[in-house]
């Protein structure tokens, strides 16, 4: 079986190489049969990579312990769910997973655009195949998932495997990597179309319209993946941290920042024909940051709680990144004249400017995180000194930037395109602005003394108020005009322009997440060793240890503390924090007990047991639930933005008076 898998990968490697050559030669020599065979080659690669993936998954599920990867990442007693997840649980498998997703994305992209973009398709095929070739090189020649265990050249097997890292045996961790990968890999498609358009010097912005939904879906996957990782850290690691600025976490957020900047900036090109160079730079940056993120987690260049071990693949990633970045820079510089802006910026106080500021702050965030991630490595190289750079330092750096971004989230959408009058500013900002000041005053009078929390909550009110006002004004107008109720009017309004109002919902999701972050300074902690029958206090909660139980399963041993929770003398709940000790990996993990409410979470970790004493780490985390609610709203908003608008539009791009009319693009499509 493993030989068939390895052969499939080798064939996929060869066919990817053929796809590049056939597509490029076919396009340059105007040989349609060659370009068509290049497209078919992508489908063949998909079939072969899927076959290889199927063989690996079968080996994992059936427990073929002759294979090194299976022996390293599964064991007999693991539930099938986690055996399947072992596909992306290790270095080799995760790289194969990359290839599988890329080949699937490539096949879908080529199939759906086969008639509409004949001129771009050969280049799209060549670019996607070049990326595929890189990953297949790693999978075929450097870190093959199909290596077998052997002693003196005789294939052997082990009785049982080492199992998946126990920390990864959690439902969110099973779906977190696929979502993140779908986001990482997905950006290859908009990137390929952008570069193909640049190579072909295609007039207009067809690559943007073609890839708008790809970009949005990919961004949605990235956002969901990052949020799932955050939820995993909160629920599994045992101390309630939902974001610790770990290098691997940072690797996931870097392309998200750049992708978010691109999603905003691209609107300027669609509507005004501006920022063409910048959008090329952003879509390329996002893609290369996806590759860079993969490099960070796999090269061992940075240490992390969940990075893969140091491996030889780092230099290949560096070479691929260097080549790719150099090629893109050359292409952009060579075709600068084709990327000229079609319009002028009329006013500094306009939607266009707000997008520019938004881009500045998002990229500054991206750079700051990148800098913080690499700073320990750079310092060690330059001064041979190791430094400690934990979440506290990152928070000091990132919180002010984040708050400014939150401010722009509220301000930006309320500026009109082209220019905004003072009257309009007053109309849009007066009430939210006054409300924001009142909220800040109330918080201060109420005794809150954490400046960042006060600023954050006040800004949350400001942004939420501006969004609610936008919905209210539009819905009221529709309600009066169509003589329908307010709720149907809200739905009608949203359906008329799903992109705009979906975007507002996404912003509302961000606001709710910031409400959650604002609770952080009010966290309360109590750690203690508690006898059976004794109590400990955390915040307003009293925890009484009723019993300490233990048990055994084939996969792990467990210990549970049964706790009676009371507040103000009233019993309110019974919680059962658990510890598991996984036999194969010889590693303990926590299954925390959580009492989650909108105002605060009571979070208890059963850290250790000594005789009849339980070491309990109890925390009260205010407002954390709002982070997860915000994520759900963000996902919902993105899905709304993906729904085609009710009113299909077709109209000429707006020109700024006095600009060259010949540059105007005749049609944009909304649906």
């Amino acid at each position, binding site marked *: 079986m493993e030989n068939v898998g390895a052969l499939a990968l080798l064939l996929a490697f060869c066919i990817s190489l053929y796809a590049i050559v056939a597509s490029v030669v076919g396009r340059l020599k105007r040989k349609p049969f060659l370009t068509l065979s290049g497209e078919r080659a992508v489908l063949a690669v998909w079939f072969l990579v899927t076959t290889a993936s199927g063989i690996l998954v079968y080996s994992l599920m059936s427990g073929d312990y002759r294979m090194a990867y299976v022996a390293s990442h599964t064991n007999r007693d693991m539930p099938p769910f986690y055996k399947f997840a072992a596909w992306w649980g290790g270095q080799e498998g995760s790289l194969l997973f990359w290839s599988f997703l890329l080949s699937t994305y490539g096949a879908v992209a080529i199939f759906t655009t086969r008639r509409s973009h004949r001129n771009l398709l050969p280049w799209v095929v060549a670019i996607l195949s070049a990326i595929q070739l890189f990953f297949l090189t790693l999978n075929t020649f450097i870190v093959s998932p199909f290596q077998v265990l052997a002693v003196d050249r005789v294939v052997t097997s082990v009785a049982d495997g080492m199992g998946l890292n126990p920390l990864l045996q959690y439902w969110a961790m099973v779906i977190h990597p696929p979502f993140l990968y779908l986001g990482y890999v997905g950006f290859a498609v908009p990137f390929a179309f952008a570069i193909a358009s640049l190579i072909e010097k295609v007039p207009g912005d067809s690559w943007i319209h073609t890839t708008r939904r790809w970009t949005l879906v990919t961004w949605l996957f990235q956002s969901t993946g990052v949020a799932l990782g955050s939820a995993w850290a909160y629920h599994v*690691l*045992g*101390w309630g941290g939902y974001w610790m600025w770990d290098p691997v976490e940072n690797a996931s957020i870097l392309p998200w920042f750049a992708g978010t900047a691109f999603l905003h900036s691209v609107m300027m090109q669609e*509507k005004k024909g501006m920022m063409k160079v910048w959008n090329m730079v952003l879509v390329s940056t996002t893609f290369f940051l996806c590759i860079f993120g993969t490099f960070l987690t796999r090269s061992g260049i940075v*240490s992390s*709680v969940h990075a893969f071990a140091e491996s030889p693949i780092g230099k290949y990633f560096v070479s691929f990144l260097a080549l790719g970045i150099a090629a893109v820079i050359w292409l952009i510089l060579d075709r600068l004249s084709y990327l000229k*802006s079609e319009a*002028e*910026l*009329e*006013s*500094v*106080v*306009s939607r*266009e*400017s707000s997008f*520019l*500021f938004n881009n*500045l702050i998002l*990229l*500054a965030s991206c*750079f*700051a995180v990148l*800098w913080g991630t690499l*700073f320990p490595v750079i*310092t060690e190289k330059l001064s041979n*000194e*190791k*430094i*400690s*750079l*934990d979440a506290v*330092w990152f928070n000091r*750096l990132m919180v002010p930037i984040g708050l400014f971004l939150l401010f722009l989230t509220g301000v930006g959408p309320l500026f*009109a*395109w*082209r220019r*905004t*009058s*003072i009257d309009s500013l007053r109309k849009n900002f007066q009430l939210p602005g006054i409300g924001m000041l009142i909220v800040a005053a109330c918080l201060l009078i109420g005794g809150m003394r954490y400046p960042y929390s006060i600023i954050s909550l006040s800004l949350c009110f400001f942004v939420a108020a501006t969004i609610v006002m936008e919905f209210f004004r539009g819905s009221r107008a529709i309600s009066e005009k169509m003589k329908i109720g307010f709720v149907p009017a809200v739905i009608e309004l949203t359906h008329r322009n799903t*992109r705009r109002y979906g975007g507002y919902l996404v912003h509302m999701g961000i606001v709710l997440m910031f409400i959650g972050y604002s609770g952080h300074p009010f966290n309360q902690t109590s*750690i*203690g*060793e508690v006898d059976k029958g004794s109590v400990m206090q955390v915040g307003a909660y009293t925890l009484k240890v009723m019993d300490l139980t233990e048990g055994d399963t084939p996969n792990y041993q467990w210990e549970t503390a049964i706790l009676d929770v009371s507040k103000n003398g009233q019993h309110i709940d019974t919680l059962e924090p658990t*510890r598991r000790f996984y036999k194969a990996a010889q590693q*303990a993990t926590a299954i925390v007990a959580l009492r989650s409410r909108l105002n605060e979470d009571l979070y208890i*970790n*059963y*850290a*250790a047991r000594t005789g009849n004493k339980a*070491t309990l*780490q109890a925390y009260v985390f205010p407002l954390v639930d709002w982070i997860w609610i915000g994520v759900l709203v963000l996902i919902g908003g993105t899905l709304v933005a993906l729904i085609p608008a009710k009113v299909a*539009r077709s*109209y*000429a791009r*707006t*020109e*700024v*008076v006095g600009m060259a009319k010949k540059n105007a693009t005749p049609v944009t499509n*909304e649906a």
Partner: protein
Amino acid sequence: MKRSLLFLVLVAAALAQTESEIESDDVKRVGTHIACQCGACSENINCNMSSGQCHFCKPARTKVYKMQRAGMNDDQVIASFVREYGQAIFRADPNSFFWVVPYLSLAAGGGILYFVIKRLRGTKGLTPATAGPAIDNDPVLEKYRAQIEKDTDRLD
């Protein structure tokens, strides 16, 4: 004999470290400068992996707490660990470059943005929207502008 035993128990109770004591802010402040030596990670001893029960970190935090109780300041505690484990155990605070570079790049980005806006504005200066009454009063331009506003508003 009973008195001696009672004394010993009292001393032991006084010296015993509770979990919350070794998790105090004072201990953690020093802990950020001492690297975990478990061999499986490169965190500092405040690391929460293994629910804070790591075989190196927990005793190390206990030791820090004891040294602090004995009157040693942060530098002395760290120096003691360096003497025992070598310089490799020390983790310094980031220098000012950590702060300066991101904010400097933000400022540089702002500068670039200024020039971008200036360039996108063409020959016009960076004047606010309300400036230029002559343009605002031009009925022909106003007609165009209303049409443009209508079009772009629908595009959002």
